[in-house]
């Protein structure tokens, strides 16, 4: 019974991380690449997929590290440094493995991987998971859902920006200005999901 309810809880958390609590549109994490790398759908997709992968894995890793290393040693306040190191090491490792075994994938995703280390959404997901005291399965679902939510947001943004290219935008609003307004409208739309989950 308890595993059943936990599974259900994990699914709810995953769903809400994608829609009602989208990590980008409600907690504003990962804005820099969101504005910087959202000119083309193709690159946005590549970066988004890389984020989904790294976010899921690092949330799981950080959960394990936090629960089995930091908590027994009572070093919880050390989590900032440890999480950053785990994320950086993981990204480096993935880069090396990809480079060695799948050059094609490396060419596609490789350029995005270093960018991800400094993506605050990745660290943010790990910090949120600690603050909300998720259990293992829930934490994994949360990491995955947040990644998917981020991917969704940046894809939509890139699509809109591509359509917007021929439009004549006031000079001061070009680039990041208009991108922020689009993001605001998207956030408004995502508020519509509130209430789907209780």
């Amino acid at each position, binding site marked *: 019974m308890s595993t059943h309810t936990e599974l259900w809880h994990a699914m709810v958390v995953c769903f809400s991380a994608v829609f009602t609590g989208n990590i980008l549109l409600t907690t*504003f994490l990962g804005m820099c690449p969101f504005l910087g790398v959202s000119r083309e759908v193709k690159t946005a997709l590549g970066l988004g997929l890389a984020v989904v992968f790294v976010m899921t894995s690092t949330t799981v890793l950080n959960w394990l590290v936090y629960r089995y290393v930091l908590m027994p040693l009572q070093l919880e306040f050390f989590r*900032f*440094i440890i999480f950053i190191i785990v994320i950086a090491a993981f990204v480096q490792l993935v880069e090396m493995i990809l480079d060695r075994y799948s050059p094609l994938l490396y060419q596609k995703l490789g350029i995005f991987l270093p960018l991800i280390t*400094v993506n605050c959404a990745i660290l943010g997901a790990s910090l949120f998971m600690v603050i909300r005291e998720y259990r293992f399965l829930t934490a994994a679902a949360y990491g995955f859902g947040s990644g998917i939510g981020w991917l969704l947001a940046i894809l939509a943004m890139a699509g809109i920006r591509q359509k917007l290219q021929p439009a004549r935008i006031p*000079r001061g609003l070009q680039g990041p*200005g208009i991108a*922020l307004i689009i993001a605001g*409208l998207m956030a408004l739309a995502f*508020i519509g999901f509130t209430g789907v989950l209780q």
Partner: protein
Amino acid sequence: MKKRSPADVAIQALWRDNPVFRQILGICSALAVTNLVLNTLVMCAALTLTTAASCLTVSLLRKYTPDRIRMMVQTLIIAFYVILIDIWLKAFWPEMGRALGPYVGLIITNCIIMGRCEAFARFNPPGLACLDGLASGLGYAFVLLAISVVRELLGMGSILGLPVPWFATHWDKWIIMVMPPGAFFTLACLVWLFRSLAPNAEGTAK
């Protein structure tokens, strides 16, 4: 890099190269903590302190840091100060610590600090680096405060929790302003304003 006077460094960091407007950096927390002015003040103080202290430390260690691992060293230095602030908040102001939640920790990944360390502090003497960090932090704080005043005033009719005369009574509160979309719109308008006002704003942001 040529020598620059302290005043020049400060003005550059505060206004001409304002990190938020010009470079659109570090806006994650700019948007997240600006729904109330008080939260913003604390966040700004934390960020300014971290930036100044990290720049000072990076600059002090600039001759002893091997180039290859400098990013890691910088991250550790920044994380050190952030942990200090986090512990201080937990000990003396737990409500604020909870309100800011993960955003204190996220100062570490705030691109502004890393950017200043990387672009300025590691080439310049400690005094100048510290000043640059301080001014960058203040430039950032100034934008955050502007955003938060607009948001709290329009959204709640108050500033710092104190009701503003006309707004508290006659203003139809725009709750949307204290919600996430309001943050996007406010920042967009400020960026628009700044880029239209500032001279030679080519606006070629990445």
